[in-house]
């Protein structure tokens, strides 16, 4: 019987010829990733269970990327980075990206591909729910807790229940005013925040396969907001080119068998898509931008693993160039590489950095920053009753700081257009008109 891509990866990782959805299998782990929030307790569990002198199962397979609470005076947060540093030194870990050095990266889910750890056909576990981002590369990737991560550190193995797969197909070219974020907000709005619980979400169709890797990553990044276990996209030449440019690792890509058994298949006509938002206080509280147009805002935020990649800023800059922002606007590159790219990437004769700075935006350092609130001195944190439109991934109560704040999730286009007017604004009002010509021509 045919297997899905997710089933094939888990079969390979468990040393079996086949697995079926619903089975529990023990898999060998190719990469374990952790960061400054969950790394210290993971290390604590590892030492408690395996002994103070224990060594990790394979130091080449452990990746530690501090990214959450970096630019803060919180003494406990800074202590946590010290714990990571000491552990990396003690275990002689080659893949530790220390704060305050040239190796510092920023947001792990964007740094992982940059550093070549997102490898088709492999298994990645990370102590962060957005680890699912790496599924864009045809990897099985999912978030776990500290106990499971401590178990992997000592054994290199973990039990996993093989998920059924929900398939989402986008037929036809994506209109120029639509971004991957609009697709995933549409899907989550359709299935609900628990609509994919225990399941894999696969994205397919020419609308998806024409996207670059960063667009695909935006889709898989937010499967956790639908409750999904992992997101996955079949790898292709776009994937292979991206990965090969960043690692010599000899990966073995896997693909869906012909006609595997899916939990469900949903089809979307790309041409019908609209710019979307998720209203407060849930990622599935969907509305079209048209429906909430004019909603008053006090802040705009562009950043995070979801919306802080270079292509996200290219999109935002295209709209913001030549304008002043009408509300407090925070620009937070996901990684140090993205921050560098902001200064070397030009739009219309100007660097992206200058475009945002001249528009009056606050420019931040690479980290998770206010996406998840964080310590009270976190850059861009919502401290009170702000109404924010954001390129990030969650808008549950208190997610970006204060419980009193309201967060609208949207694409970089929509956030940029709204930052200019101070109200929720349709990006089509700011995008060059000639680009709209192809909008109806899909499928």
């Amino acid at each position, binding site marked *: 019987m045919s297997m899905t891509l997710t089933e094939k990866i888990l079969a390979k990782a468990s040393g079996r010829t086949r697995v079926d959805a619903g089975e*529990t299998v023990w898999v060998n782990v190719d990469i374990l990733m952790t960061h400054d*929030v*969950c790394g*210290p*307790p993971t290390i*604590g569990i590892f030492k*408690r*269970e*395996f002994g103070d002198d224990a060594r990790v199962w394979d130091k080449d397979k452990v990746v530690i990327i501090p990214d*959450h*609470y970096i630019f803060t005076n*919180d003494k*406990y*947060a800074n*202590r*946590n980075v010290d714990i990571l540093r000491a552990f990396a030194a003690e275990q002689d870990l080659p893949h530790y990206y220390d704060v305050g050095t040239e190796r510092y990266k920023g947001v792990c889910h964007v740094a992982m591909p940059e550093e070549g750890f997102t490898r088709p056909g492999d298994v990645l576990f*990370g*102590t*962060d*729910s957005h*680890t699912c981002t790496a599924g864009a590369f045809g990897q099985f990737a999912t*978030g*776990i*807790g*500290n*106990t*499971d991560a401590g*178990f992997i550190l*000592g*054994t290199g193995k973990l*039990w996993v*229940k093989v998920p059924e797969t929900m398939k989402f197909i986008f037929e036809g070219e994506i209109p120029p005013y639509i971004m991957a974020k609009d697709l995933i907000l549409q899907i989550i709005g359709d299935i609900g*925040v*628990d609509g994919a*619980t*225990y399941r894999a979400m696969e994205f397919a169709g020419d609308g998806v396969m024409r996207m670059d890797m960063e667009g695909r990553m935006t889709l898989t990044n937010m499967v*956790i907001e639908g*409750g999904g*276990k992992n997101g996955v996209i079949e790898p292709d030449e776009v994937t292979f080119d991206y990965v090969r440019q960043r690692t010599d690792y000899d990966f073995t890509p896997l693909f869906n068998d012909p006609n595997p058994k899916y939990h469900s298949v949903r089809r979307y006509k790309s041409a019908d898509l609209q710019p979307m938002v998720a209203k407060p206080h*849930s990622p599935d509280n969907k509305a079209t931008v048209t429906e909430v147009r004019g909603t008053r805002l006090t802040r705009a935020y562009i950043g995070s693993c979801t919306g802080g990649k270079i292509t996200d800023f290219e999109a935002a800059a295209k709209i913001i160039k030549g304008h002043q922002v009408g509300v407090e606007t925070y620009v937070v590159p996901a990684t140090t590489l993205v921050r560098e790219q902001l200064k070397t990437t030009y739009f219309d004769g100007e660097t992206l950095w200058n475009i945002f700075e001249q528009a009056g935006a606050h420019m931040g350092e690479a980290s998770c920053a206010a996406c*998840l*609130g*964080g*310590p*009270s001195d976190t850059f861009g944190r919502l401290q009170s009753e702000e109404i924010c439109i954001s390129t990030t991934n*969650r808008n*549950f*109560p*208190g*997610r970006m*700081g204060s*419980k009193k704040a309201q967060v609208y999730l949207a694409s970089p286009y929509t956030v940029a257009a709204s930052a200019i007017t101070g109200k929720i604004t349709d990006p089509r009002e700011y995008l060059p008109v000639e680009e709209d010509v192809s909008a109806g021509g899909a499928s």
Partner: protein
Amino acid sequence: MDKTIKGKAFVVGNDIDTDQIIPAEHLVYSLDDPEERRFYGRYSLSGVPEKESGLPNGGIPFTAPDKFKSEFKVIIGGKNFGCGSSREHAPFSLMEAGAEAVVATGYARIFYRNAVDGGFIIPYESHDDLIGNISTGDEVEIDGELNIIKNFTTGKSFPLKKLGDVIDIVEAGGIFKYAAKHGMI
């Protein structure tokens, strides 16, 4: 499971995410240090909006201000309890506050896994939505053998789903104890 859990219930709504269970700003404390870990009990469920904290009327903190332990032993939730981040600090904080079980109609996957593998609290699933059937402060008892929850305040009982695949890990007390028992580590 022959375990019986008895105590006061604390009722919250649907889609209680991990930022509501333990807000991100508090994740800086050590989970090992006996002084620091107490703060997870103090701030457990502190991110739930006031009017939804302690249903049906709200306005009840799970852990009273300036305390480290909660007076509530069983948390009653709706669908998708524990959605959001993978932070294990979430089920840990409920345990640290003194809770022993959650009863919800459904769980987010990672929270469920963390609760079980860490051996922190038992995540029971109910067939019925209990939010309207149990009020915060009601005296309840979970019978782990018969798989029912009794509400002594109202006299009503409700069936719970069997723990299924994970029962061996729950009974062992977490993934490490389970693995040791089976000669895996």
